[in-house]
């Protein structure tokens, strides 16, 4: 069953054509890695999936609902589709535990006791249960990002979007975050769409790799074809050789 479907999606910023005729289907449980040079539209694409960016033309179906339809309730989409950002975006005025408990309390009306139990489980899952009473600013970048992942997981979403989750981190922090992400990817029910240049992650857990440039999807391959064979697109080949030898 498909979780996310793009049909001829167009996105403009004024005159600028940010997404060009996107056609993509991502099945439930799939882990898809999205790569491409900066400005290629990969962040824009991922942000359309939970409605942080609106599309102007085409059809975008997420969890069975059409996002182009003005009547679609974005809050309902976002209940089921979590997002992890490059700069974590933890709530600066709330403790780690409160960061995780806020949305389930307000949006899902989850009872307080159960909410806390789930939050602590999620903290445990990302290896940071002992940080619960701290404020976000007291944690390192890598820890904050793992908390951000725990915060998304606590909503029990069907899909998770990752927008360059490791690119703002110090190198020694990256593995901790990637390990948490790999752990989630191995959970067969979770759909993941990940913008990243961490090719080790892609090799290990991705089902598919998508290459974008200039707002278009130029390559959409299985992991095996992308890494072991050769992408058929010339720009994708060049890009891949650059990030791998880098």
């Amino acid at each position, binding site marked *: 069953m498909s979780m996310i479907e793009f049909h001829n999606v167009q996105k403009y910023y004024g005159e600028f054509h940010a997404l060009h005729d996107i056609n993509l289907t991502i099945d439930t449980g799939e882990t898809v890695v999205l790569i491409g040079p900066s400005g290629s539209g990969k962040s824009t694409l991922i942000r359309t999936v*939970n409605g*942080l960016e609106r599309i102007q033309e085409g059809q975008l179906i997420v969890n069975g609902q059409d996002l182009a339809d003005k009547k679609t309730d974005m*809050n309902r989409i*976002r*209940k089921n589709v*979590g*997002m992890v*950002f490059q*700069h*974590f*975006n*933890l*709530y*600066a*005025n*709330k403790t780690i535990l409160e960061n995780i408990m*806020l*949305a389930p309390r*307000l*949006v*899902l009306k989850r009872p307080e006791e159960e909410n806390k139990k789930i939050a602590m489980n999620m903290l445990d899952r990302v290896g940071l249960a002992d940080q619960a009473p701290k404020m976000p600013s007291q944690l390192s970048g890598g820890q904050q990002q793992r908390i*951000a992942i725990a*915060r*998304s997981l606590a*909503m029990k979403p069907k899909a998770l979007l990752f927008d360059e989750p490791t690119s703002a981190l110090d190198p020694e922090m990256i593995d901790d975050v990637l390990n948490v992400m790999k752990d989630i990817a191995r959970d067969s029910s979770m759909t993941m769409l990940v913008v990243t240049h961490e090719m080790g992650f892609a090799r290990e857990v991705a089902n598919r790799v998508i290459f974008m440039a200039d707002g278009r999807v130029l390559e959409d391959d299985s992991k095996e074809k992308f890494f072991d064979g050769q992408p058929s697109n010339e720009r994708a080949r060049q890009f891949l050789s650059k990030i791998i030898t880098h």
Partner: protein
Amino acid sequence: MIAIFHNYGSLLLQGFGQTLLCSVIALIFSLIIGSMFAIFETTPSKFLRVIARIYIEVFRNIPLLVITMFFFVVIPMFVAKINGFTAGTIGLTIYTSAFIAETVRSGINSVDPGQMEGARANGLSWWQAMRYVVLPQAFRYVIPPLGNQFINLVKNSSVLAFVAGFDLMYQGNVIASDSLNTMSTYICIGILYLIITLPLSYWMRYLEKKLA
């Protein structure tokens, strides 16, 4: 000076009470109304943004005295008679709320947009994100400028003197013309204003330290 306090104690006390009452009422309502228009200014709704812009630009660019006279003179001609104290307090509230709206708006704008985005992506509605994530941070930023607005508000309450609001300034004028001891009278009045404003400014400083 002691003689002034001694001879006109009850007038001074009444004036002090009226000034304090007017300040407290105007402070509470201008904070509520000002915050409301600040939120309007940052909503996705263009209609609310335009409404807020008009309100703020009109009322912060008209002298307080003109707004107050409008309520004291014009409104009674068409609607209902209101006394000087009420007219002054309404005028002061409206005038100050326009400044507070601008202050709070600047606080909301200085909160990292990622906070709103993170909250929305987490499933919160725009209002929930504003209420639980953005506003608490915004208020922390704006405590010092809000303190200035509150102090200005207390001092501006002397507008009541023009509309027979029986506040400190009004009583000061009465006492000065009765005792003919103008210097001592206005020094007394000044001291009584300080009794309100100094603790207020001290309290804002304390809040600033505590919440920073």
